[in-house]
Structures are given as structure tokens and as C-alpha cells.
């Protein structure tokens, strides 16, 4: 621009200026005096415009090079005459030997004072220099813009500010070098004392942070060369590497010390503090450029280096933190580990193994706990005993009740464990996904290792729906149901669970032991979790219940319209029509174990009539259907009258007593027998069996319920022992009395209790049969679609398809394949090792 103005355009004003070529010297003199004033801090009376114009004119006259050199020379001279001596004074022998040789014996305080004095001197010199150079550069702005830029020289500022680097930092001033025979530059001392100060601060001393910050920003303003390349700040090229090295050493030592002298908890807090300190140090004392690098140092030296050693510490390591719920420790640990390891391997593995260990411990405790007394299982289970008999609080629980207690205990413990780790996960682990999946996997592992988990979960739900729900708010119910779903999620063999749940649900529905809407809620949740096919049977059961209730109403209307008073007077019928496929086998009375299960028991004539009447009614609209009476699943309310006992004038026995007795269908049949009996007569067990054709085992339970349990002892047994034998005889208990009008005969050994080992094997066997069919179906489905597959491919496809129902065993799949080969659903592909082709 200036050139163009010079060559092409001659403003009038410039013409007369131009002819006086000797104007350089006066201008320079003006400038030189100004430079001196600036250095001596007397710039207040100078006119910027005048000085700027002076340099402007020199440049316009093409004397820029001369001006540039003059200024540089002036500054160098000034520097060596005025500044270097000041610094040289600071560099005492004492300081040099202190900084470089580090002789022992000087107190930190002494060292700190000396270091800070030195640094202060450097800083002051720098600030003067920097300020002067800025002002000078401003005056010579036009020079920089034109001449310097064109000649590709460093700007006047860079050239003069660099003097500080060349003549001070990279120089050994004073006589210390020769006297101590020590080869050094000021920079060495500067770094050494700065690092010393930082270490002092790390050890808890108070130092002048601002001073250090001034020094580091000086180093950030200076570059290796006058070109001022951004990456070559002296701070980055010289100071920072030394600082990092020094810090590494410091933290390495510190880590070793911590490992020896402290516990993991101290270590965590200390490390966290150090990280914060270093961050703060970068913000206030050094440079934010170093923040990440120094964090890396602390991370690698204090965290990564001995992580496993700290985690394994007895009594304070990770295990202790988990076991004692040291939430704060764990939070810090998580934060620290996330810094160094994104996959958090060490934390993950320990967590997993701890979950597994605690899970197996639950199982172990379960095995070792004696559930035979109510006290061992807590108050809740006390009710269990109460059911067995009022006065028998300390009496041993029945085997089934023990199992229920065990199941509930197991579920509770597992949920507790789960809660514990969920809590850790939420509070300490920032809801980390990696850790969540790891822990979930461990949970599934130990839950599925326990072979009764499916049954226990179902039992837990059963127990809660039957008893727990009462008196709870919706929200509390929700919590229980959610818990159940959580466990369900972990179960692998869902088909097993389905089987158990079906059985338990059937029992609950038929006996009206739970609230329907809660039941539906539960099933709805399962549906959401596992899909439609899983709950199809359950929903079918609900439907049956609804249809049945309508049917019952209609039947009643029907009877009333018939006006068959005799029929409606004898008994009211409450009917449940159950669709075969939805309901479990044993509830449906098709338990193959039971001998002669098919043979119907003999109903009393009154009941027989009722049945026939219902049959007629039912088949009127639905011809061709088959109804089977499932006598083992029903209950009956009997109104009974106990006449007053002659000779008793006082007490309840002196009056006539009316009770409503709720017994099983079998119980009702048996009691009806006694209606026909004359007073004083008795029936033997065998006689009853013969007259009723009730299966022996069912009859035993029935008799026990009405002749042993004190609450409902309407029959007297001879001999009066606590168990039923085939040789016992029974008679009407005329002395029966009860405080309540409505009496429920206790169900002895209800189906919803935990199975015995024998039964469980049965269930598993049945389950395996079902699985076989399911696998068959899956194989055929897959082959039909793919036509040809290798054995491995087929196996893995089957496993994927069935994943959300159960985990099929490889051997079972193999067996099914072989079976299908025999049945010619598919054939081996010739010439290929284990590949199959689908046969349509």
C-alpha cells in the first residue's frame, strides 16, 4: 500500500516532505529518546502520534531496515547495560548450589524464601521488559506492517522480546558458574526452584502462587525462536517436560508410600485430592495447557500403577467396600477407575465375582438353615404355624411349610442382594452400563445355578398374592410385583417357571385366595416382559373364571325358573368350567401317579342330582362337549347344626350350635356320609374309602383336615393320634364347638407348597417332555425355512429361537434331531459331514 502510494500517487503534502532525505536522523533521535523514556518509565509525556509519525516517515523513505537494526541494537545495548546486571545480582552462589546441587540441611522455609526472591526478580525484570517492548512495538507498528512483513523478519516485538530468552534464560549470568564449576543457564535454576516450590506446596507448604503463575505465563509468552511458532513456547518445550518428569517421580514415591502405610480408603481420598489439587494448580499456578497431561501422570502413577494391590487390600479393598456398603469409597473408586480404564475391568471382575460369591452364600445359608421352627424364619412364617394349630407355636412346621419359608427366604435374600448392588450401581457407579450388564450377568448366573429358582420365584409370588397383598396399598403391591418381575427377568428356564406359576395360579383362582385384579396386574407385567405366548395360558385361566361365574349365575336363574325347589334347597352350585389346555395337569386331577384317578368318586345322591341338572343345563347350548368333575379341586360350604348336648346346662354346649363349615369337595362327601349315620355309630377309614371311592392319599388329607386340626374337628378319630392310618375309625363329634360361625377346615399339604424331591423330578420330567416338543417344533420350523443346514448352524438357530423361553441342552437338541431323522422330517445330506435337508 505504502509502495503503491509512493510510486503512483503523490499527495501534495508528501512532495515537500520527500525532498528532505536527511530527515532520518532527527526522526531516529526522537525515537531513541522516546525508547529511553519508555524504559525508564517516563512515557507519560510522550505523544504517541508524533513517535508513530516519525517511524512512519522513516519507513516511507525506505529506511525501514535501518530503523529495524537501530532499534534492535538499542535494545540489546539497553538490555546488557541495565537488565542483565540486575539479574546477575540475583544469581548468588548460594542460590545456584541450592537449586542445582540440592545440598541437604537447608530448611524448606529458607529455600522457599530464596527461590521466591529469585523468581520475583526475574518476574519484575520480565514485566518491565515486556511492557516496554509492547509500547515500542506499538510505536513502530507501521514498521512491522510494512518493512518487517515484506522482508520476512520477525516482528520488532518478537526480535526484542526474544532478548530476554537469549540473554537471560539461556545464559549463565554472574560469577556463580565459574566459582562453583557448574555448567548451567538461568533457565535451569528457574525450573529447579519452581519445581521445588511446587513440591513444597504438594507437601503442604504455602507458596506464592501468583509469582509462579507470572513465571509460567512468561514462559508461555516466549518461544524457542523469534518466529514464534505456537508449539514452541518455552513453557511447552522446556518447562513442562521437566514438570511432568518431576511429578511422575513425586507421585511414584507417594504411591509406594501409600501402599505401605495406608489403606485403600485413604488411598482413594488422597488420590482424589491430588487430582483436584493438580487441576487447581494448573488453573491458578501453572498453565491450563498442562491440565490433561498432569492428570495423566496422577492417573498412571497413583491409580493404574498399583490399582490391583489397593483393590485387593484386606479390610479396606473393594471387597470390604462392597460388603460394608462404603458408598463414598465406591463412588470415588468408580470415578478414579473410569478415568484410567473405560471398560473398568478390575472393578467389573471383582463385582461379578462378589455377586456370585454372595449369591452362592445365600444358597449355602439356605441349605444350612433349619426351617423347622417358626423362629428360625421370622414372624411372617409364624402364621404358617398358626394354620397348623393355635397352640402349636413352637411346634415344628410341616415339610411343605418349611419349603415355602425357604423359598421366601431365598427370594428375599436374592432381592436384597440385588437391591444392594442396584443401590451401589445407582449411587456410586453413575448407572454405568458396562457394570450393569456385568452384574446382571452374574445375577443370572447364580440364580440359574440354583436349580429350584423357577419354583421359588413362583412360590414367592404365590405367597405374596395369597397373604402379603392384604392390607397393602397399590404402591406397595406394585413394589412386590416389580420385585418378582426383576427376578423373572433373570430366570433362564422360563418354561419351568411357567409350569409352576400355572399350578400356583390355578390353586389361587379356584380357592379364591387372591384378588383378581392383582393377579391380572401380575400377568400383565409378565406379558410385557416375556411376550404373549408366555401368558396365554394364564389369561385363558382368567377367562375361564369369568365365563364360569356367568355360567353359575345363569344356572341359578335356570334352576329358579324351573322352580325345582328341592334342588336349589339342598345346595347351591358354584361351578368353574376349566378349559383343559389352560390348566395344569395335577389340578385337573389327571395326575398319572394317582391310581385309579379316572374312576370318579361316589357322590352323595343329593349332589349327584345337582350335577346331572347342571349337565343338562350346560349341554343345552353346547352339545358335544365333555365335562369331567374334578372333585379334588373344589370346596363346599356346609351348614351344620350341632344339637345341644343333653345334661349340659351351661356353656355353649348347652345350646344348639350352627356353623358354616368350609371343606374340600372330598370333605363334603365324607361328612355327608355321617349325616346318614345313627348316633354313636362310627365308620372306619376303609369303609369311608369304599363308600366314596376317593383316592387313598386324598382321603387321608381330607380326614386329617376334619378330624385332627383342632379348629375344625367335627369328627372324632379313634385312636386320637396326630396322623391318619387306614385302620382308624371316625365318628361324629357331638361336642364340637367353635368361637366363630364360619369355619374353614385347613387344607393339609396344599398343592401350592414346595414340591418334594420326588414331585420335583416329576415336574422336571414333564417339563423335559414339553421341551422336547418345543425343540422339535423349532427344528422343523427352521428347516422348513432354510431347507438345508449344517448341524452347528441348526443347533445355534434353535438356541437363539428358544432363548427367551429356556436354554436347551445341546445333548437334547441332538437327540431331537436324531429323532426327527428317524421320523423322516429331514435327512442327512450325503457327502457332507453332519448337514441336514428338510423333507417336505
Amino acid at each position: 500500500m505504502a509502495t503503491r502510494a509512493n510510486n503512483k500517487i503523490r499527495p501534495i503534502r508528501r512532495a515537500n516532505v520527500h525532498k528532505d532525505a536527511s530527515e532520518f536522523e532527527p526522526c531516529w533521535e526522537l525515537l531513541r529518546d522516546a525508547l529511553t523514556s519508555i524504559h525508564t518509565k517516563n512515557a507519560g509525556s510522550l505523544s504517541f502520534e508524533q513517535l508513530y509519525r516519525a517511524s512512519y516517515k522513516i519507513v516511507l523513505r525506505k529506511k525501514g531496515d535501518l530503523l529495524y537494526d537501530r532499534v534492535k541494537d538499542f535494545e540489546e545495548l539497553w538490555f546488557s547495560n541495565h537488565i542483565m546486571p540486575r539479574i546477575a545480582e540475583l544469581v548468588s552462589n548460594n542460590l545456584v548450589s541450592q537449586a542445582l546441587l540440592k545440598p541437604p540441611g537447608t530448611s524448606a522455609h529458607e529455600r522457599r524464601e530464596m527461590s521466591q526472591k529469585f523468581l520475583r526478580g526475574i518476574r519484575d525484570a520480565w514485566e518491565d521488559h515486556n511492557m516496554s517492548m509492547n509500547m515500542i512495538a506499538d510505536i513502530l507498528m507501521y514498521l512491522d506492517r510494512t518493512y518487517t512483513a515484506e522482508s520476512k523478519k520477525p516482528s520488532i516485538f518478537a526480535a526484542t522480546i526474544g532478548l530476554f530468552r537469549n540473554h537471560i534464560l539461556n545464559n549463565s549470568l554472574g560469577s556463580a558458574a565459574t566459582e562453583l564449576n557448574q555448567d548451567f543457564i538461568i533457565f535451569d535454576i528457574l525450573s529447579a526452584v519452581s519445581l521445588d516450590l511446587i513440591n513444597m506446596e504438594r507437601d503442604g507448604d504455602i507458596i506464592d502462587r501468583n509469582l509462579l503463575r507470572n513465571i509460567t505465563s512468561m514462559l508461555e509468552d516466549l518461544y524457542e525462536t523469534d518466529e514464534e511458532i505456537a508449539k514452541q513456547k518455552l513453557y511447552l518445550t522446556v518447562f513442562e517436560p521437566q514438570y511432568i518428569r518431576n511429578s511422575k517421580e513425586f507421585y511414584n514415591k507417594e504411591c509406594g508410600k501409600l501402599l505401605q502405610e495406608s489403606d485403600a480408603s485413604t488411598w482413594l481420598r488422597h488420590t482424589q485430592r491430588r487430582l483436584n489439587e493438580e487441576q487447581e494448580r494448573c488453573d491458578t499456578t501453572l498453565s491450563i495447557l498442562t491440565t490433561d497431561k498432569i492428570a495423566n501422570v496422577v492417573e498412571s502413577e497413583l491409580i493404574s500403577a498399583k490399582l490391583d494391590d489397593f483393590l485387593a487390600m484386606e479390610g479396606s479393598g473393594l471387597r470390604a467396600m462392597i460388603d460394608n456398603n462404603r458408598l463414598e469409597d465406591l463412588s470415588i473408586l468408580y470415578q478414579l477407575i473410569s478415568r484410567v480404564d473405560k471398560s473398568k475391568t478390575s472393578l467389573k471382575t471383582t463385582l461379578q465375582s462378589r455377586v456370585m460369591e454372595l449369591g452362592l452364600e445365600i444358597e449355602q445359608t439356605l441349605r444350612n438353615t433349619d426351617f423347622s421352627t417358626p423362629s428360625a424364619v421370622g414372624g411372617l412364617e409364624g402364621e404358617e404355624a398358626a394354620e397348623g394349630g393355635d397352640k402349636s407355636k413352637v411346634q415344628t412346621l410341616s415339610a411343605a411349610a418349611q419349603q415355602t419359608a425357604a423359598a421366601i427366604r431365598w427370594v428375599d435374600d436374592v432381592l436384597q442382594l440385588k437391591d444392594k448392588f442396584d443401590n451401589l450401581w445407582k449411587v456410586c457407579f453413575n448407572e454405568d452400563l458396562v457394570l450393569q450388564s456385568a452384574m446382571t450377568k452374574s445375577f443370572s448366573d447364580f440364580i440359574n445355578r440354583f436349580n429350584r429358582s423357577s419354583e421359588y420365584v413362583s412360590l414367592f409370588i404365590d405367597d405374596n398374592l395369597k397373604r402379603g397383598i392384604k392390607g397393602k396399598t397399590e404402591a406397595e403391591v406394585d413394589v412386590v410385583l416389580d420385585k418378582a418381575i426383576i427376578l423373572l427377568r433373570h430366570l433362564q428356564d422360563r418354561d419351568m417357571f411357567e409350569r409352576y406359576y400355572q399350578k400356583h395360579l390355578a390353586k389361587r383362582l379356584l380357592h379364591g385366595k387372591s384378588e383378581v385384579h392383582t393377579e391380572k396386574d401380575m400377568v400383565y407385567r409378565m406379558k410385557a416382559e416375556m411376550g404373549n405366548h408366555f401368558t396365554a395360558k394364564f389369561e385363558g385361566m382368567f377367562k375361564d373364571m369369568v365365563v364360569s361365574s356367568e355360567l353359575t349365575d345363569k344356572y341359578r336363574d335356570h334352576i329358579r325358573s324351573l322352580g325345582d325347589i328341592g334342588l336349589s334347597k339342598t345346595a347351591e352350585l358354584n361351578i368353574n368350567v376349566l378349559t383343559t389346555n389352560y390348566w395344569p395337569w395335577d389340578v385337573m386331577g389327571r395326575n398319572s401317579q394317582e391310581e385309579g384317578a379316572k374312576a370318579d368318586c361316589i357322590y352323595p345322591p343329593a349332589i349327584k342330582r345337582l350335577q346331572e341338572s347342571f349337565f343338562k343345563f350346560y349341554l343345552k347350548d353346547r352339545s358335544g362337549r365333555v365335562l369331567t368333575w374334578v372333585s379334588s379341586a373344589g370346596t363346599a360350604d356346609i351348614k351344620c347344626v350341632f344339637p345341644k348336648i343333653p345334661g349340659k346346662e351351661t356353656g355353649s354346649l348347652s345350646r344348639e350350635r350352627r356353623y358354616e363349615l368350609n371343606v374340600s369337595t372330598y370333605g363334603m362327601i365324607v361328612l355327608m356320609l355321617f349325616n346318614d349315620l345313627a348316633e354313636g355309630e362310627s365308620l372306619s377309614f376303609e369303609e369311608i374309602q369304599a363308600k366314596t371311592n376317593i383316592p387313598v392319599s386324598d382321603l387321608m388329607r381330607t380326614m386329617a383336615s376334619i378330624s385332627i386340626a383342632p379348629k375344625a374337628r367335627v369328627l372324632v378319630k379313634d385312636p386320637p393320634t396326630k396322623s391318619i392310618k387306614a385302620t382308624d375309625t371316625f365318628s361324629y363329634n357331638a361336642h364340637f364347638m367353635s368361637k366363630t360361625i364360619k369355619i374353614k377346615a385347613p387344607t393339609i399339604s396344599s398343592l401350592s407348597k414346595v414340591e418334594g424331591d420326588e414331585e420335583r423330578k416329576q415336574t422336571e420330567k414333564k417339563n423335559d417332555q414339553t421341551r422336547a416338543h418345543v425343540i422339535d417344533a423349532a427344528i422343523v420350523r427352521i428347516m422348513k425355512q432354510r431347507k438345508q443346514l449344517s448341524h452347528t448352524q441348526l443347533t445355534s438357530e434353535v438356541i437363539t429361537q428358544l432363548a427367551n423361553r429356556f436354554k436347551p441342552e445341546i445333548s437334547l437338541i441332538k437327540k431331537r434331531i436324531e429323532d426327527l431323522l428317524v421320523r423322516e422330517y429331514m435327512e442327512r445330506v450325503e457327502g457332507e459331514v453332519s448337514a441336514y435337508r428338510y423333507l417336505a
Partner: protein
Amino acid sequence: MAANGHQSNSPYVTLVSSDGLEFVVLREATSVSPTIRGMLRGQMIEARTGRCEFPEISGVILEKVVEYFHYWYKNQDKKDVPDMDIPVELCLQILDAADYLGLDSKPPLRQLKEGS
């Protein structure tokens, strides 16, 4: 640097031409000129008094310069701004002043960093 200067803190500065005309301009508007920016930081007379004298720029030209300062200040962030009207007869002198005031180029990085 500007912080330890004694310049008045007024948001306006006074520019004085060779023939004694005074222009009071928004300080921020003048900052487009690195030269004036340099004047107003630091500790010299201009910075202290907030008054910049230009003995080699005439009132006519300085008026145009000040007009440009405002023009720049108003339009610095806008797009598609109409050109400023410059009488042909003043072109050379304005060009000269612009060169002097450093209006020909973007401010160097160092000054940007330090500019207040």
C-alpha cells in the same frame, strides 16, 4: 497493557485535525484503526487524555475517516452493506490517511490478543 494506563475511561475519544477541527467519536468505533488503538492503550499523552491530534490530516479528510469509523462500527457484523460514498477528489488523500491509520489490513494477531 491498557489496564495500567491512565487514559480516561470515557466511551468517547476526541480526534483533532490539522486545522483544529475536533471530532468526538465512540471509542469502540475508532478501534478499527490499529494506529489509534495503539495510541489509546499504553501510557502516552493520547491514552491519558483521550485526545488524539493528527497534525497531518486535514479536517475534510478526518471527517471522512470518522464517517468511516461509524460506518464500520454500525455495519461490522452485517452482510450486503451499501458502499460508503467517497468523493473522487478526496480519494488520494483519504487513501493516504487510511494507510497512516492502518485501515488497509486486518489487525495483526498480537494486537488482537492484547486489544481491550
